[in-house]
């Protein structure tokens, strides 16, 4: 009698090795290379000079100060917003939430650019309104304080979302029980709600800190003109002044970033130790407090905040893109679409950047989708240690600051590839490889939640019908997860298209991305072109978010980062 194959599980035999290969190539290999380089250079003492330089210590200090300061602002803004929006009878919650989340999805260098255009003596917006400070007065944002403020605004949505997730499952009956027990609304908030939401608050704060440590766009635009360096911008400037010890220094500096980011996460773990606040009971409708006559005050206050963090900078950006040169006031005589014509039809640099970014984002989004579907299928069907290890390995490159990942890819691909003896360093392919690694987690998450929510018997019924793995994927599984797959593609496209941090280190002539193009245009003084390009990026981000918003009803819960 022929031997029967071991096929009780639904996975074809090639699936597990394939997924292991993906994960090793995209996560393990670059991380291991970076770790190896950092440790080797440290032990061989090649870069001891680095830590003797005061500039290094200044950058470490600046990183700590800006990340912590930004975190404080984020927590303040995000927490107030989250509490008011989820717990009270505040009106227009959907619109407010969408507007509040928007800064997170707008690339940081665009945010920084917009704020610079909004303030300072040459601001076209202020000039138009006639309230610009006198020429020669300093741009107030080119300072540590400016970096802190913008990091705070950029990452406040992270705190908002982390808190909102916790608040959404806060049971109404728990609050009502406390009210019946005689507690005033303020007591309920202090004794019941605040303790229950600490995990979300701490998680959000840690996330804001880690994102602040890794942020490149904001300190690059605000810090470099004033010679204020943080670790990511220090790495960037070291790479620009390529020297003998560059690789060693970059490896050590990025290890430094990883250590500080890891420190933030460790503090989070420590703060949450032993806190098991799983909500027991029905989590039906949200607890609602009536704000009474304070409602108008809150609504007005939030409108003012949103005006300053969102509307005004974006208006300044649009104004700057419509004037012929920085510092010219906007009116009917000066207004022109020249900048748009320039970047869309004449400048080969921006045209190449468009082509590169669209290609990179499209290839990353669709390429990763194939990986994600296969990996999610495997992980959803196979619980246990292996699945946890995989999930963590996929998460690390996304959680790591982009600059660290970029350094890892430079180290990995600086030498020609073995066997084929071709170097992809300096080509667009190294950026693509880094994007695959960095955004795997983004792509995987929606697909994974769709697979986890799928009733396994749907696939089992297909198996008993006689359908092979390929048939089941084509006829049953892929159609059922299609909305989540669509969301995955759009999300990755959205983030990859305007990405700056990774490509800032990896680009070279001809392979610049949109993010790099904006940064370089601003750096070379063409602020009108940079503004125009930024406006286009913002329009694209908002459009893609609106498409996702329309898809939202058909998506599994938790797929869209700005919805719960």
């Amino acid at each position, binding site marked *: 009698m022929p031997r*029967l194959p071991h096929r*009780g599980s639904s996975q074809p035999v090639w699936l597990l090795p394939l997924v292991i290969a993906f994960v090793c190539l995209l996560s393990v290999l670059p991380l291991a290379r970076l770790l190896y380089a950092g440790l080797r250079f440290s032990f061989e003492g090649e870069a001891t000079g680095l830590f003797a330089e005061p500039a290094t210590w200044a950058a470490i200090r600046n990183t700590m100060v800006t990340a912590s300061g930004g975190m404080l602002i984020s927590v303040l803004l995000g927490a107030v917003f989250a509490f008011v929006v989820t717990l009270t009878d505040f009106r227009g919650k959907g619109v407010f939430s969408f507007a509040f989340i928007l800064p997170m999805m707008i690339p940081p260098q665009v945010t920084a650019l917009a704020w610079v255009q909004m303030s300072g003596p040459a601001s076209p917006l202020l000039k138009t309104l006639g309230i610009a400070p006198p020429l020669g007065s300093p741009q107030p944002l080119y300072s540590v304080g400016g970096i802190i403020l913008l990091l705070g605004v950029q990452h406040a949505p992270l705190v908002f979302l982390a808190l909102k997730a916790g608040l959404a499952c806060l049971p109404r009956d728990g609050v009502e029980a406390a009210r019946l027990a005689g507690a005033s609304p303020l007591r309920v908030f202090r004794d019941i709600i605040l303790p229950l939401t600490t995990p979300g608050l701490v998680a959000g704060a840690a996330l804001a800190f880690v994102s602040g440590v890794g942020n490149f766009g904001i300190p690059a635009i605000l810090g470099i003109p004033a010679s204020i360096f943080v670790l990511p911008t220090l790495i960037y400037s070291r790479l620009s002044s390529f020297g003998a010890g560059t690789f060693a220094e970059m490896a050590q500096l990025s290890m430094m970033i990883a250590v500080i980011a890891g420190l933030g996460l460790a503090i989070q773990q420590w703060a949450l130790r032993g806190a098991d606040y799983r909500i027991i009971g029905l989590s039906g409708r949200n607890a609602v407090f009536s704000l009474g006559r304070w409602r108008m005050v809150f609504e007005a206050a939030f409108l003012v905040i949103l005006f300053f963090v969102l509307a005004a900078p974006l208006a300044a950006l649009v104004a700057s893109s419509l004037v012929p040169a920085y510092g010219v006031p906007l009116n009917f005589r000066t207004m022109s679409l020249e900048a748009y014509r320039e970047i869309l039809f004449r400048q080969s640099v921006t045209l190449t950047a468009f082509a590169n970014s669209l290609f990179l984002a499209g290839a990353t989004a669709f390429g990763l989708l194939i990986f994600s579907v296969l990996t999610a299928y495997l992980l959803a069907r196979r619980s246990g240690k292996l699945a946890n290890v995989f999930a963590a390995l996929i998460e690390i490159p996304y959680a790591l600051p982009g600059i660290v990942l970029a350094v890892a890819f430079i180290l990995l691909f600086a030498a020609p590839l073995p066997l084929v003896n071709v170097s992809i360093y300096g080509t667009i392919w190294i950026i693509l490889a880094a994007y695959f690694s960095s955004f795997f987690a983004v792509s995987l998450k929606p697909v994974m939640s769709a697979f986890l929510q799928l009733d396994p018997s749907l696939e*089992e*019924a297909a198996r008993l019908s*006689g359908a092979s793995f390929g048939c089941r994927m084509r*006829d049953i599984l892929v159609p059922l997860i299609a909305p989540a797959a669509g969301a995955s593609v759009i999300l990755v496209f959205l983030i990859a298209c305007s990405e700056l941090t990774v490509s800032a280190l990896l680009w070279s002539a001809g392979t610049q991305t949109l993010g790099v193009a904006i940064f370089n245009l601003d750096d070379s003084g063409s602020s009108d072109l940079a503004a125009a390009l930024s406006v286009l990026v913002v329009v694209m981000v908002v459009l893609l978010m609106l498409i996702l918003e329309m898809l939202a009803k058909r998506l599994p819960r938790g797929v869209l980062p700005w919805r719960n």
Partner: protein
Amino acid sequence: MAQLILNHVSKDFGTGQAAVRDVSLKVREGGFLALLGASGCGKTTLLRMIAGFEEPTEGSIILGERTLADGSGSLPPEKRNMAMVFQSYALWPHMTVAQNVGYPLKVRGVTGAAFDVRVREALSVVRLEDFASRRPAELSGGQRQRVALARCLVSSPDVVLLDEPLANLDRHLKAAMLETFREFHARSGATMIYVTHDQSEAMALATDVAVMSEGRLLQVAAPEEIYARPEGHVVGGLIGQGAVLELVLPDHDSRLMGWPMIEKAFRQMGGPRRAILVRPEHVVADPDGVMLQVRSCVYEGERFVLSLLTSGGQALQAYSPFAVVPGSLQPFVIRQGWLV
């Protein structure tokens, strides 16, 4: 179609306690076997091993000439020519009723007129011809159930498996679906295996009932047989109503005990005790009987159910056409009992 044989089948998920332990079973061709047991007894695991979703740790499963699983491996479900009605029905929401039903034909390469004819035939058996172009979401629970059944019918499988198919339906619909299953079995002639924890479903449908507990197969027999002559406490407790009494009974060549012997046992004090199963319909009020205390009397619609207590403190039940005052002592005769 062929006989399904399970040979010393065991399944251990590595949790310390085996889910299925050494089950041997023959399901006759065209038979309707009900796998009955409390939740967690291993009946669903056994069904999933027959379907091929789980691989037995030990033992073998044989269908006619084919070995489906043995120690060396297991034939994947897609090659077993079986069909299953899932507890959740497992209809594919993105396909119409006709596409759902026809999917087994589609993967077998049946197309065109032959496809249409067979799908229509299957839908007519469950009386859903007019619903062919609907989507599952537009159907009621009972209709979804019937679509799942039609999907089983369409490919003429060797074995049809049903995993608690009535668990999600209301009482009224259950009765109608039981009739549909019976009709379906008679028409298709397929071997059917039906997992349930509801003994009335098992009794109503099956030609054979297999009772499982803690992963073991306790007894396989025809419904009347298993009701009248259960093996052991667990089977006795699971099938029908009944109470187990510990009485001082003499050795006897038959396990069926009549009233004279039971009466004698009630008067006997010392000696080894043996367990008998007493059905409530065999406990009747009679002036010649033993005195039992009535603890409660509950009206169930067609009769009263009495909870009784012997002088030794053992509980049993009786049916009564009239109400009895709780707390009173009344004489009862136990017509028969079954040594378990």
